[in-house]
């Protein structure tokens, strides 16, 4: 649904001899009907990439196909087939929710009657019927964000671009937004979203790409990416026979690495959820007992850390 090859964008900056390269050769492939997450710290090139794919910014070089149309030669076709929800909102506070949806639908070429019907449909879908005829200036942040999404889907686009869809929302509104985005996938819409929240990429995206300093550093499902890191960590709390437990688990083919200290045995496995029941059976069979057994999965932050040497959480805290 989206395919890019060596997409680049540089910006001229005053007082500097060289252009600043915001996006430095991005290759992406996004399948039909998937939620694709674009994860990276602020300034990594996420929004620049998104704006290029949404026809708002011409690429410096590289090619891209969006919803079956060539980005450079058929921008009009791309626009007809995509929806775009910008980061900072997209509505006029002096307009009503219904008013914005109707004009948006009409700008996509719908007749007055169709636009009104479709606006009513989107309002009910996003549970904004009660506020439909109120000025947007009176909406809560979550309501305004839902309306932004409504404006992006009013013409039923094949691809919806969402730029940081939950930034600034409280946890409840964020969970609500995640449900709406998953609902879009159920309708067959391809969703391309940027985020700097690890949890969001993890919870929402079918597949994701991690971008840093204008380059993609990792791509895959969240599970694949985490598995690349070092596997899962299992910690077994043991009463007494630490050496015996260590020996028993080391003999297992699925254990990559194991070490013991005081009364715990720590081991690295490829897939913790499969390893845990096998470990328990092994220990039982050997007549050994574990006091506790904890499984920790690496987070996307571990992935980012390994690829860039920096922690995304630190970047977030610094921002």
């Amino acid at each position, binding site marked *: 649904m989206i395919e890019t090859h060596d997409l680049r964008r540089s910006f001229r900056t005053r007082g500097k001899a060289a252009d600043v390269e915001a996006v430095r050769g991005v290759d992406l492939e996004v399948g039909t009907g998937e939620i694709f997450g674009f994860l990276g710290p602020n300034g990594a090139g996420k929004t620049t990439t998104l704006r290029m794919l949404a026809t708002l910014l011409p690429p410096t070089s590289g090619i891209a196909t969006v919803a079956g149309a060539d980005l450079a030669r058929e921008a009009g076709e791309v626009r007809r087939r995509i929806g*775009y929800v910008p980061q900072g*909102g997209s509505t*006029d506070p002096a307009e009503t929710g219904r008013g914005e949806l109707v004009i948006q639908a009409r700008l996509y070429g719908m007749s007055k009657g*169709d636009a009104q019907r479709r606006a009513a449909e989107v309002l009910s879908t996003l549970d904004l019927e009660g506020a439909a005829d109120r000025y947007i200036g009176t909406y809560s942040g979550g309501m305004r964000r839902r309306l932004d999404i409504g404006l992006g889907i009013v013409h039923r686009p094949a691809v919806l671009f969402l730029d940081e869809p939950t930034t600034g929302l409280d946890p409840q509104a964020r969970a609500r937004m995640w449900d709406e985005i998953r609902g879009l996938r159920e309708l067959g819409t391809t969703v391309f979203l940027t985020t700097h929240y690890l949890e969001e990429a993890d919870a929402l995206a079918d597949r994701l790409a991690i971008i840093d300093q204008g380059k993609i550093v990792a791509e895959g499902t969240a599970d694949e990416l985490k598995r690349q890191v070092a596997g899962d960590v299992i910690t077994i709390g043991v009463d007494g026979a630490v050496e015996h437990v260590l020996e028993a688990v080391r003999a297992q083919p699925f254990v990559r690495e194991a070490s013991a200290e005081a009364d715990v045995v720590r081991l690295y496995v490829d897939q913790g959820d499969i390893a845990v029941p096998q470990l328990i059976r092994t220990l039982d069979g050997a007549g050994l007992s574990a006091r506790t057994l904890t499984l920790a999965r690496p987070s996307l932050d571990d992935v980012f850390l390994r690829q860039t040497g920096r922690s995304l959480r630190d970047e977030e805290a610094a921002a």
Partner: protein
Amino acid sequence: MTALTRSAVDHPTTIRTTQGAPLVRTLRETWLIYRRSLILTLRQPVWVAMGLIQPILYLVLFGPLLDGATAASGQAGSAFNWFIPGLLVQTAFFAAAFAGFGLVAELRYGVIERMRVTPMSRFAMLSGRSLRDVTILLVQAGLMIVVAIPFGLGIDPVGAVLTLGLVALIGLTMSLFSYAAALVLKSEDALAPVVQGIALPVLLLSGILLPMSLAPDWLRTLSTFNPLTHAVDAARALFNGVWADPQIVVGVTIMGVLTVIALWVASRAFSRGTT
């Protein structure tokens, strides 16, 4: 299943989109943007009221001074027949010069970006808003003429209508330039000094407030390079039905050329950055 899937499956609206010739589409989109922006402007009645009160203040508080001034300059006829066409031009010039501030707000709300992603004509984004500015301006100008009649303003109906046409052209040009500046500068703080810095000398050099015949030679020479001077002269000749005055052709031609330039500049600013 979320609310989203449920309702969309229950009552799917068929989406028919009009294709049509590019010109027809652009006209339709201009109309849509015109209507929307006019409605949104009328929801802020303070601005509309301000626009009406200002010229009336000029009429009431400045107009009475004119009798003496015009007598001193040796011009014939009612002072108001000299003053009102100038005031109309000034209102058109200033009100439209500040149109960019509304666009800066829309840029900040994200409305412009949202519309840029739709397939709509970039020209319509611009023309719809400029026509809104011209509409409001014509209402203000019409009202000013009516209010000035009791002060002794003589009316030539054809002249008044033609003057309003010139006023519309000035308003269109200035609002287009103002939009172009707003799109480049993107903030009120940057826009205000630019608009003020250009508008004030242009106004002072135009002979709107006092006749340029009172000016020393160097100032009068300088004022002939000011397009607004010629627009004001043309407006005065038109309004009073002095059809033989060559300033009519000069002023209207200059404004027409400027309108074309403004259209080109603003269209470029609007489509810049997008393909």
